[in-house]
């Protein structure tokens, strides 16, 4: 007996040539957590010429063998109803074709060449289970506590490492965030990145102001922007039983999408984002992005304009490794460059060196990622920068004069000094105001 799909619904965008990002956006928009893409996969009974079966049902079918080396892109098949993967005898059909041709009924017919029709599901590379994440968070906190003790540094608020669920991430603990009395309330924070999952339950009720500079919806389908925003501005108490991972939990969030969902952008878009954030009165701008280039005069001018307007730009130094200099925009003198340290508080191997003002936790950082995955670990100076941004927002809240250059100077003065040279960690590890 052939299997038939259990769900129907509207699948207007789920054509065979629709890109995965568009499919994901459609799934998120309709609040669908089923992980179904809206398309269907068809298998055939033994002995059937599967390449002709769908044509017989009146579907326009593109054959994978008609493309060079079968390495075709789904967006090249145009308005076909289906794509047949010749070598494996499986077809992918559009949601519309499935519903229009009543294929579920066709599949049930004993004379049908079709063996099964099943929904296609999204797959995610970093689909970590909550149990794994809990175990990991516990482990990194143990490592952080032990290594700090070995270095003669005590965490200011040692945690009982036997608890099953860590209360906060190692990064927040290392930055003394949990004991800070500040929340970032009233301090506008801009995150210039790949956008944000505005439907993430940990951000329900948060004030978002958004703008896009890349012609795509602000909704983040990359994950980078949602992760960075989570660290800088995530909640004091996440919706589920995860450790606290966010710093400025009451800061109004300004999401400027300057990178596409594929993680690409241009300097022009990044500059457009800075201009917007300044015009919105943001006190801190996070830029977890860049490229290996010499100092760019436009970024330097933008950084100076920000300081003059009482705004501090914080940028990731880059992940090209110790042998490589800080990239742009972090290499501009008017912008704070952030290096990454590991849980042992040693500089991360990937972290660029040279023009570095301060360091932040940047390896194995736990934070929010878009639904349906919700949480994930990422590493990079991209993750270190939002620790500094979040702490800067808390610090700005302590005094209205702590803005621009004054905020920068106080942030560096408050850093926890590390033994490594300044070209690797700058003034040291960023600390939240107590």
């Amino acid at each position: 007996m052939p299997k038939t799909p259990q769900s129907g619904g509207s699948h207007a965008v789920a054509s065979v040539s629709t890109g995965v990002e568009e499919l994901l956006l459609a799934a998120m928009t309709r609040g669908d957590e089923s992980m179904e893409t809206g398309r269907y996969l068809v298998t055939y009974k033994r002995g059937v010429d599967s390449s002709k079966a769908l044509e017989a049902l009146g579907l326009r079918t593109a054959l994978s063998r008609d493309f060079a080396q079968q390495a075709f892109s789904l967006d090249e098949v145009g308005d076909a109803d289906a794509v047949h993967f010749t070598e494996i005898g499986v077809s992918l059909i559009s949601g519309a074709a499935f519903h229009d041709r009543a294929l579920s009924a066709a599949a049930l017919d004993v004379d049908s060449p079709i063996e099964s029709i099943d929904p296609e599901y999204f797959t995610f590379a970093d689909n970590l289970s909550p149990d794994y994440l809990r175990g990991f968070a516990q482990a990194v906190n143990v490592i952080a506590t032990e290594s700090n003790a070995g270095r003669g540094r005590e965490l200011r608020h040692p945690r009982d490492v036997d608890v099953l669920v860590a209360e906060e991430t190692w990064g927040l603990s290392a930055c003394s965030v949990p004991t800070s009395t500040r929340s970032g309330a009233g301090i506008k924070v801009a995150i210039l990145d790949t956008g944000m999952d505005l439907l993430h339950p940990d951000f329900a009720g948060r004030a978002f102001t958004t703008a896009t500079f890349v012609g795509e919806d602000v909704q983040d389908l990359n994950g980078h922007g949602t992760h960075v925003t989570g660290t800088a501005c995530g909640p004091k108490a996440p919706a589920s039983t995860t450790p606290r991972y966010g710093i400025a939990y009451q800061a109004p969030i300004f999401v400027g999408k300057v990178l596409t969902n594929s993680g690409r952008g241009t300097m022009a878009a990044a500059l457009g984002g800075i201009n917007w954030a300044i015009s919105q009165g943001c006190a801190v701008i996070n830029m977890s992005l860049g490229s290996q280039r010499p100092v760019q005069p436009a970024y330097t001018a933008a950084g100076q304009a920000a300081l003059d307007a009482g705004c501090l730009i914080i940028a990731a130094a880059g992940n090209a490794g110790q042998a490589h200099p800080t990239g742009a925009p972090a290499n501009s003198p008017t912008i704070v460059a952030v290096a990454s340290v590991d849980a042992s508080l040693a500089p991360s191997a990937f972290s660029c060196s040279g023009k570095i003002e301060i360091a932040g936790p940047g390896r194995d950082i736990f934070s929010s990622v878009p639904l349906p995955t919700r949480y994930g670990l990422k590493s990079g100076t991209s993750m270190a920068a939002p620790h500094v941004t979040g702490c800067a927002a808390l610090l700005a809240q302590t005094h209205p004069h702590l803005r621009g250059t004054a905020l920068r100077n106080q942030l560096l003065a408050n850093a926890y000094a590390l033994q490594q040279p300044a070209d690797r960690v700058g003034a040291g590890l960023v600390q939240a105001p107590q």
Partner: protein
Amino acid sequence: VTQSKRWIVTASPDHAFGEVAGAVAQAGLRIEQRLDDIGVLVGMADEETAKRLRTVAGVADVSPDEAIDIGPPGSPRTW
């Protein structure tokens, strides 16, 4: 025929930004973005025009727009 490309024009802060914007437009930059808060213009021009823009009073820098790439969705390590 030289191809038109995108340029980032940084104005000197000691000149009125509106005047610089007017002068570079006059010199041939097709302005796409006028970023008043940071004193930067983004626009299209060919190489010859870009050279000319560098001589306009109040222009501090003319650089080609550059790509940024932080990696594909779900990357465990990014920028």
